[in-house]
């Protein structure tokens, strides 16, 4: 797993994807921080982060779309899948490398709470809550996008599939807000990323919401493993 992790992380930066992602992420976060925090005289980061969450629906698939599609296309998956190593380890190595890239990009935003703290009052609980939540959500996003990447040889198709799926998860409760059915709105509230995110961003650590994000991540990593394993049989 370590070998895969290191190769992937390196590939992000030699291939340019990593730099572009970090740049785009910092730019967006900076704009949002300026628009929603500084210019509004707000020390609250909630809106900055919840907007980042939407932006990540489009940013993360652009980084993860190559994870499996490219291996399949360049036939390098023949090296990985004939090595004495579990498919699960490969999937995890790739997952953690992408998560690491996200964390590197996220580090840049640490400057905002520091600035706010220096010139205003910082609500530490809310800030920490938001950081935990965005990392958990990013992990889930990466797992979902990695799964989509394992489905198609085409990077574009896998990116589009990820964006669609993530948007669906995100906007689920908006879609079902109109419904009067108890069951449907219950399901949508249960599955919706936005609902799960709300408590965290208020600075409350909610175990059930954390479990939701972790389960979503684990589930999709497991699906990815199954898809890759299944290729041997096709």
């Amino acid at each position, binding site marked *: 797993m370590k070998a895969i992790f290191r190769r992937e992380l390196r590939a992000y930066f030699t291939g340019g994807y990593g730099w572009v992602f970090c740049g785009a992420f910092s730019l967006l976060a900076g704009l949002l921080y300026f628009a929603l925090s500084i210019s509004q005289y707000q020390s609250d980061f909630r809106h900055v982060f919840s907007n980042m969450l939407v932006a990540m629906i489009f940013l993360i698939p652009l980084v993860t779309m190559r994870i499996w599609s490219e291996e399949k296309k360049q*036939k390098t998956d023949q090296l*990985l899948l004939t090595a004495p190593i579990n498919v699960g380890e490969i999937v995890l190595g790739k997952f953690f490398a992408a998560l690491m890239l996200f964390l590197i990009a996220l580090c840049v935003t640490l400057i905002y709470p520091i600035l706010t703290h220096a010139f205003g009052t910082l609500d530490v609980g809310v800030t920490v809550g938001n950081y935990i939540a965005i990392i958990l959500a990013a992990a889930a996003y990466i797992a979902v996008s990695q799964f989509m990447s394992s489905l198609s040889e085409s990077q574009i198709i896998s990116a589009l599939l990820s964006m669609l799926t993530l948007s669906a998860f995100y906007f689920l409760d908006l879609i079902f807000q109109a419904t009067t059915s108890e069951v449907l709105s219950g399901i949508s509230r249960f599955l919706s990323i936005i609902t799960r995110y709300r408590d965290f961003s208020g600075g409350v650590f909610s175990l059930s919401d954390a479990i939701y994000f972790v389960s979503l991540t684990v589930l999709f990593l497991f699906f990815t493993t199954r898809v890759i394993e299944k290729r041997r049989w096709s």
Partner: protein
Amino acid sequence: MIQIKNLSKRYGSKEAVRGISFCVSKGEIVGFLGPNGAGKSTTMNMLTGYLSATGGSASIAGFDVLDDAYEARRHVGYLPEQPPLYFDMTVNEYLNFVYELRRATQKKEEHISDICARVGLSDVRARLIKNLSKGYRQRVGIAQALIGDPDVLILDEPTVGLDPNQIVEIRNLIKSLGEDHTVILSTHIIPEVVAVCTRIVVINEGKIVADGKTEEIMQDLGGENRYEAEIDGDEDVAIACLAGIAGVLDVSKPGKKYIITAKEGLDIRKDVFLAAAEQNLPLLSFAKAESSLESIFARLTNKGGEN
């Protein structure tokens, strides 16, 4: 070292490999010969665990490729048809990655240096793989298969797409690798198996049609007595003239040249020259025809059917 029993692979309704069986003992260099689409790559992919068989079993160094996949894979180095290279890495980085991926236990620096020296990569270790020529990329592919010092090497068309000099180099390399490894290499080039392999397994349409020592198989194949002639003058006269020679079984003219098939073991060259001269037909070129791959496969497949 390698045991294959009744191995088969079905893709949907198409049966790519139909129940093949053979064993390879330690130290053999086996040429897996067959036309494109015969099932060579599929068989190799099943041996290395990239694909799963739909029937039968295979084992490497005593480990079943499905039940003991982990141990079996440790004993195999694999060069697929397209070398699995990451173009954004240097040769050194790539080989280090493969070393870690395969959890090799040899001393890292020494092991990788040895392999590079052996396959002739020492001078390009710091270069990016994407900047290497096809021949060097192929060598990186072979180097990658050697990492961890596996007992068995499986090489899928290792010389395809190389220039003649590189082909000779890679063949010599494979021969030297055969001294301390068990090697299976696939190819559709007959001179290649003759030059490199100690044993030939011929596969066609997913079935083994011949299996034996290289000399035996080649002797079997060399029996056909055919000649190619280029003759000036009227075609009908020429065909009648050639067909009239004692011992000639068949005369045809599929292209520019006449193909003359004669009885096995009979040398008709003198007769052809004299007969053509007598009819005042200038003989422009004349040679014994090399057996083409197609005709060899046709013969082997027919033989397989008769047995």
